[in-house]
């Protein structure tokens, strides 16, 4: 995130699942940086850590009550012209995008069958009105089982934008 978008500090906001603003059928775009992509397999595979939460410091910087992970709401992003650079430009070269449905995240199930529901909240930011956050509703930090479940979903869906090895 560019430095001019940082520094906005206020009382932490409670996280609320925006069921009405973000429909279950909505597609959420998640940036996967190259460091989290296994390029040794074909097609490249997004590993679990590509779906981890930000740090507590980053959450506090954006007045979020707890660590979350950033996504872009596809329909809003498309409404602003579908500029890929507006999303990927903030991240290392070669980053890719996966698309996960809000409904799949809200009803997330681990590979072993445990329910691990995620919340989805619209969190528009300067220059990124499509920005939203997702968080784990069962733990203060997203467990590895939930990250793995999201990686499995992403693998099944295929890449929205293929990452590049740089």
């Amino acid at each position, binding site marked *: 995130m560019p430095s001019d978008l940082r520094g906005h500090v206020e009382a932490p906001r409670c996280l609320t699942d925006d069921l009405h603003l973000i429909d279950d059928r909505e597609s959420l775009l998640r940036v996967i940086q190259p460091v989290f992509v296994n390029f040794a397999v074909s097609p490249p595979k997004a590993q679990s850590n590509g779906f981890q939460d*930000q*740090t507590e410091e980053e959450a506090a910087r954006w007045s979020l009550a707890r660590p979350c992970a950033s996504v872009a709401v596809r329909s809003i992003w498309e409404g602003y012209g579908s500029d890929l650079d507006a999303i990927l430009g903030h991240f290392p070269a070669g980053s890719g995008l996966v698309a996960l449905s809000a409904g799949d995240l809200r009803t997330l199930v*681990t590979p072993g069958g*445990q329910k691990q529901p995620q919340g989805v909240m619209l969190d528009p930011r300067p220059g990124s009105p499509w920005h939203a956050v997702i968080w784990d509703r069962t733990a203060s930090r997203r467990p*590895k089982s939930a990250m793995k479940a999201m990686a499995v979903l992403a693998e099944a869906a295929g890449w929205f934008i293929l990452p590049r090895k740089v």
Partner: protein
Amino acid sequence: MTSLTSARSRSDWFTPHATAALGPTAAASASEVVDTHYRPLHPTTPRWLPDVAARIGRLLLDAQSLAEAPAAVALWNILRDSAWAAAPEPFVSPVNQGGFSAEFERGGLHLHLEVLSNGEASVYLYDGALFEWEGDLDEVPDGIEKWAWRLGHAV
């Protein structure tokens, strides 16, 4: 009979060259690995160890923080154990809150090992539809060595 895993404390992993002091608890056969808490006997370190070491080194440089070094050392101490000799090469990546993780996958068996800079080490295990577990490294059912061995023999 002492479990190798229980003989190690968390601080062991964060001490350089910790594995050099391991006790004589190597199993002599595959059946002994299954029936006891003895560690599998492999005469060599994992063949992928140099590549993983290089990857950890690059990630450590990218982190540009000495605070990450203990986690790198701890992960290295775990992965250079000969118990991993037959395991597939793990995918090593950084953890946002500080630290590194290694993901192994083979034959429906998934092991995600995470070592944080604050000294916490945890594991996620998924063995097909049969077993799923997540928790502290020190509390891995049957010990981490046995899962390393299972990874090496999964088909």
